[in-house]
């Protein structure tokens, strides 16, 4: 049992698989973005090289900063992501799940964002703290919409919090094919964009305003782990969306192709949104999520309650 747990956590749906797939998809992202911009883009092993290079660099710990928090934050958030990927992955691939795992996922993702904020403000740099401040505002903006998005599949599966049951409820039809499902899916995609701080929501780490925001003072391995975290999210969030709205993966014969396609489609959608939008202001983001996205999702929830 314990051995299996380690396998799930560290190798298959957990750390190793997510990291490798994430870095690869990160390459896809960079490559597709480059093609968008008439460029060639980086070679395949680029993200791996970047990561290993950062592992060997000097780690500078800022004198003014809160040392412990500064160092620990990237690793805790990394652990959170590994856990989430293991939970999502096991229910996707092995159909193993437990009672309240959607709530657990929500909490773990929250911890991740909080770690970004703590790490950023622990570095004692004014840009980092501004970035952390914006991260909090962004979290406030998208969190409610995201929770409401998660509510839709819960309601549609007959009030199940169990990922396995949600998956099972989609056996005779994906949620995305219903009215409430499609609304929730689109808003969910935007929430993910915000959670991953991809354009147009890369407000906290706005390169030309706040340098790299919360990650500005990081160097060496901690920075490497922040980058890895970012790429791992390319796996975690699309998987979650596939699970909640698109009926999960199926690995029988030709169905594999369809499963891969599902995942790639979400990633490509994210990349397209990323490359065709300038950064918006934090107040515009708040406005967008509170005035439009959240009410829309509420409608979706109501629709779901009435079974549409």
């Amino acid at each position, binding site marked *: 049992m314990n051995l299996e747990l380690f396998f799930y956590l560290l190798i298959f749906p957990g750390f190793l698989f997510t990291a490798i797939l994430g870095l690869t998809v990160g390459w896809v992202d960079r490559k597709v*973005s480059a093609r*968008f*911009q*008439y*460029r060639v883009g980086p070679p395949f092993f680029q993200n791996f090289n970047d990561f290993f290079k950062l592992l060997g660099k000097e780690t500078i710990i800022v004198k*003014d900063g809160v040392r412990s928090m500064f160092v620990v934050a990237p690793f805790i958030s990394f652990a959170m992501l590994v856990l989430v990927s293991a939970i999502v992955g096991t229910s996707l691939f092995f159909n193993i799940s437990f009672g309240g795992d959607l709530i657990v996922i929500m909490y773990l993702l929250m911890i991740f964002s909080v770690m970004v904020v703590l790490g950023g*403000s622990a570095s*004692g*740099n*004014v840009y*980092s*703290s*501004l970035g*952390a*401040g914006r991260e*909090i505002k962004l979290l*406030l903006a998208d969190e409610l919409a995201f929770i409401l998005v998660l509510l839709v599949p819960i309601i549609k599966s007959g009030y199940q919090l169990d990922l396995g049951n949600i998956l099972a409820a989609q056996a005779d039809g994906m949620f995305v094919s219903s009215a409430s499902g499609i609304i929730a899916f689109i808003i969910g995609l935007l929430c993910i964009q915000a959670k991953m701080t991809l*354009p*147009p929501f*890369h*407000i906290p780490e*706005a*390169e*030309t*305003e706040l*340098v790299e925001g919360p990650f500005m003072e990081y160097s060496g391995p901690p920075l490497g782990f922040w980058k890895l975290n970012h790429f791992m999210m390319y796996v975690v969030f699309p998987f979650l969306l596939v699970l909640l709205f698109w009926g999960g993966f199926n690995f029988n014969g030709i169905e594999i192709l369809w499963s891969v396609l599902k995942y790639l489609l979400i990633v490509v959608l994210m990349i397209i949104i990323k*490359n*065709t*939008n*300038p*950064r*918006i*202001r*934090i*107040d*515009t983001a708040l406005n967008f999520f509170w005035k439009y996205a959240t009410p829309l999702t509420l409608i979706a929830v109501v629709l779901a309650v009435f079974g549409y």
Partner: protein
Amino acid sequence: MDKNVIPVGPYHPLLEEAEYFTLQVDGETVVDIDLEIGWMHRGHEFISESKTFTQSLYLVERICGICSTSHPLAAVHAMEDVDNIEIPLRARYIRTLVGELERIHSHLLWLGLAGHFIGYDTLWMWAWKYREPVLQMFEIISGNRNHYGMMRVGGVAKDVDPDKIKSLLDIMDEIEKKIQMIAKAANDDPVLKSRLKGVGVLTKKDAVDFCAVGPTARASGVSVDVRKDEPTDAYDLVDFKIIVTENGDVFDKTVVRLLETFESIKICKQCLEKLKTVNGGIRNNVKEISAGEGIGRYEAPRGEVFHYVRTDGTNRPVRHKVRAPSYVNIPTFKASCKGIPVADALITLAAVDPCYCCTERSIKIRDKNNEPYQLDLMKLSREKTEQIRRQMK
């Protein structure tokens, strides 16, 4: 709420050059802005006084790498103004051609960087992709991508090869099509519009008060353009319009620049057509410049470049004063940045197309007693956390 200070720079990715702004903010709103400069100061005016006139052209070309035609052109205008030296017709067309090509490349460069500043890297890459053919044209005409070394007192240094005019015109056509595409894309983008419209307004009165020049002034409704006001070179022989808009916000500055690019393309085409037929020398031999003083100016992409030369009959200037357009445009930040969010302040700062290499300056905040207002960054970050915590309750 306490006033906080955001230092921008001296090294900050928003600015290619080292500059130091301090934004005094109240929450996320900019209350005041100050600027401390001198990080780029190289003492051009001092060096120029120890150089001969021709050497001085090499030097003024290196004031700024983006306006590297405007400064030599203004300098030769000033030197020619001392003695009223005439230049051949063909040289006039070549000067105009190079000057307008520079405007195209500079405006595209700005458009790309503006896209980068608001986090729209795709726009950046596109604008810069279509800037390359312009540099290619420069390479065909002058042999260099930047720092063309074309200007001489009494004419130009190199002739445009008549065999290449056809291919130059072809490149021009291609550029025009591509820029039209970008302009359309930029104009139709709703997010871009909402991000730029009504941001960082510089009123007409402020523009006049601060003596702003170039697209900064023209976007605010002040019709000032050296090319029309005092046509030198071939500007009185070609047909073009001055673009003036009324609102003075960042969006209008973008529009002015984009439309100006088309005007420049028009001028370039006319010049190239004329170069097919106009023959003659490209340079009058100027042996010496007599004692006197001369004012030369040229409409650089960013506005009027002003050179003043005072001579005493030797081959060196007694005084060579340079005034770059950014020098008068940058103080307008004080008017256009007040009362807008921090996120907008940065694009407003960039909208002037500031060239600090030309200007030589950066920002400092002073409190009531005129003491430098300094803030412990750690304290600031803690206050910010505290503030956020209060907001979250």
